[in-house]
């Protein structure tokens, strides 16, 4: 750790004070206000807001779609990381940098284009819709756009680990008569587990909070294609602030527990490094 005694370099109280001040104003006070507002509801009101049939359907869809998308990203991410680290092919650098595009592209743009690609007249929809695959205004559409949004996470967590992988372990495995698949399955994959879990958790967390792209592709039908953030907005537009806050608090608590989980996982995955 490159920190020094606080007496030597100037500016400790100034910078720490400002950091805490800005953090409080912009983050801590608003979050407290959110919990405060939820606490002003009676338990009955709170329960009625967060446990309606519509809200339950929304949670299920939010977490279900984010989970499925994260699982898909787990496999796609591993595949992409493997190909980008191990193989050479023309255009590899381009593919490598395109993986980051979903992070840089505004989510609204992603949602807009995905909604128009998979409708019946769209570029991909004209082939898929006749097959009965509705890639727009359906639950599948939500998963699809979440796969797009979460694509970079697993790739970028697995890639550095794979680059650092000790080649001699592979060689040892091969010299002991292991097939290529056995080597991958028993030697390489276990070292990737921590990175895979971290990437999965990041993609999942991103999918749970995602709003901008889903609102374009889902069609927002209550009970069917309505995710929790869309439900919050719907409640806000009815000026039902208490109910909206109650649902928001449920989401906040779940995302905070996920943040703690991610940090624990990261610490666990780094446990041999110090």
């Amino acid at each position, binding site marked *: 750790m*490159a*920190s*020094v005694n*606080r007496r030597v370099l100037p500016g*400790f109280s*100034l*910078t720490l004070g400002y*950091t805490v001040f*800005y953090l409080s104003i*912009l983050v*801590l006070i*608003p*979050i407290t*206000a959110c919990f405060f507002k939820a606490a002003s509801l009676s338990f009955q009101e709170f329960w009625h807001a967060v446990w309606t049939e519509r809200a339950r359907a929304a949670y299920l869809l939010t977490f279900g779609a984010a989970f499925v998308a994260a699982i898909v990203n787990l496999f796609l991410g591993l*595949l*992409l990381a493997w*190909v980008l680290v191990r193989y050479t*092919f023309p255009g590899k650098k381009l593919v490598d*940098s395109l993986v*980051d*595009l979903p*992070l*840089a*592209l*505004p*989510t*609204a*743009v992603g949602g*807009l*284009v995905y*909604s*128009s*690609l998979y409708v019946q007249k769209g570029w991909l929809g004209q082939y898929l819709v006749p097959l009965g695959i509705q890639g727009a205004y359906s639950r599948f559409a939500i998963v699809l756009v979440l796969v*797009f949004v979460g694509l970079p996470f697993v790739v*970028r967590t697995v890639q550095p680990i794979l680059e650092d992988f000790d080649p*001699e372990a*592979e*060689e040892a*495995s*091969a010299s002991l008569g292991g097939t290529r698949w056995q080597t991958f399955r028993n030697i390489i994959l276990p070292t990737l587990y921590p990175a895979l879990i971290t990437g999965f958790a*990041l993609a999942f*967390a991103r999918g*749970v*909070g*995602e709003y*901008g792209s889903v*609102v*374009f592709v889902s069609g927002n039908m209550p009970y069917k294609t309505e995710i*929790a*953030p869309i439900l919050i*907005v719907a409640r*806000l537009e009815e000026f039902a*602030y208490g109910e909206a*806050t109650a649902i*928001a608090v449920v*989401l906040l608590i779940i*995302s905070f527990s996920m943040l703690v989980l991610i*940090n624990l996982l990261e610490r666990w995955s*780094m446990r041999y*490094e110090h």
Partner: protein
Amino acid sequence: MNTEAAVQKPQAGAAARIQRARQDPTWVRWGLTLVAVAVVGVLVVIPVVNIFVQALSDGVGGYWKNLVADPDTRHSIILTLTVVPIALVANIIFGFMAAWAIARFDFPGRTLLTALIDLPFSVSPVVAGLMFVLIFGLQGYLGSFLREDGYSVMPYLISLLAVGVFILLFFLFRPASPKTRHELWNHPWTVVLVGSAGVFGLLFFLQVHFEVWPRNESLKIIFATPGLVLATAFVTFPFVARELIPVMEAVGPDEELAALSLGASGWQIFRHITVPNIKWGLVYGVILCNARAMGEFGAVYVVSGHIAGQTDTMPLRIEKLFQEYNLPGAFAVASVLTLLAILTLMAKIKLERKVPSRANLSEPKTKEARL
């Protein structure tokens, strides 16, 4: 000579053997590569191409007209270009402050503070917007006050801001080494207290005396530009700090300590040592922050109130055009944001080569994947 060659030969053989052991069969290599390219093609390339094709479906003239002739679209571009820089500057200042405090000092609660900076990443943007509505909205905690006499806070706010700038300047330009300090500089808290009181009093008097701000008039924060700035700043809050902290930790405090021992002031250390050292990390953080701020949708959606021509930023304008079935218009705005995203990516690749300290950080890629 001979022995050397004999030693090298088995090594070369071992390298070849390792190479062979790590090589997948050709059909696996080709198959996986094709699948990977297809995945990126379907998920990323086709959508991006589609954006530009749809945007230009009315021809270049129609594209230009969609972008510039519609006054609401024009206003949304201007609004985005006002909101984003303000939020960006606020977060850059915060990033410097947080990086200096966290990377240069050890204090209790340091880990907690670092974790708190990450908090906005785990809050759904819609919930972030809702928080500000709860505080500043019409039914919010400060709502009735803001509606009746909102502008009465302005003299206090401006004066407090001036006090903050005063304290900042004082600490920056105070000679850091005790040897070069004059009498007055040795009592920082007296100077800060008296000076702050003076600055506050003077500014407050000036503003009240000349009645700069209207009385008994409502100050709009939600459904107006300040709310957009707040929501954008919240969502993009961690980016600059997260980039600067690891870079500053990797550079280490030695050069700054050397400058200090040579009698440099806080500002001189910052200007001549710290900023050049972390320059590329800063640019990198700013680029990521800017991309996210430009494209922010959820948080801004909740606080904007969707007043066309007033509180629609570019992503919100896309949504409105989409709802109005004006797809060429929506795609025209989207293409501008896509161009920006592509530029962001190109700048990011350039910079990744220029930030050498990134290479030896413990987990750089995990961190940057959180845009």
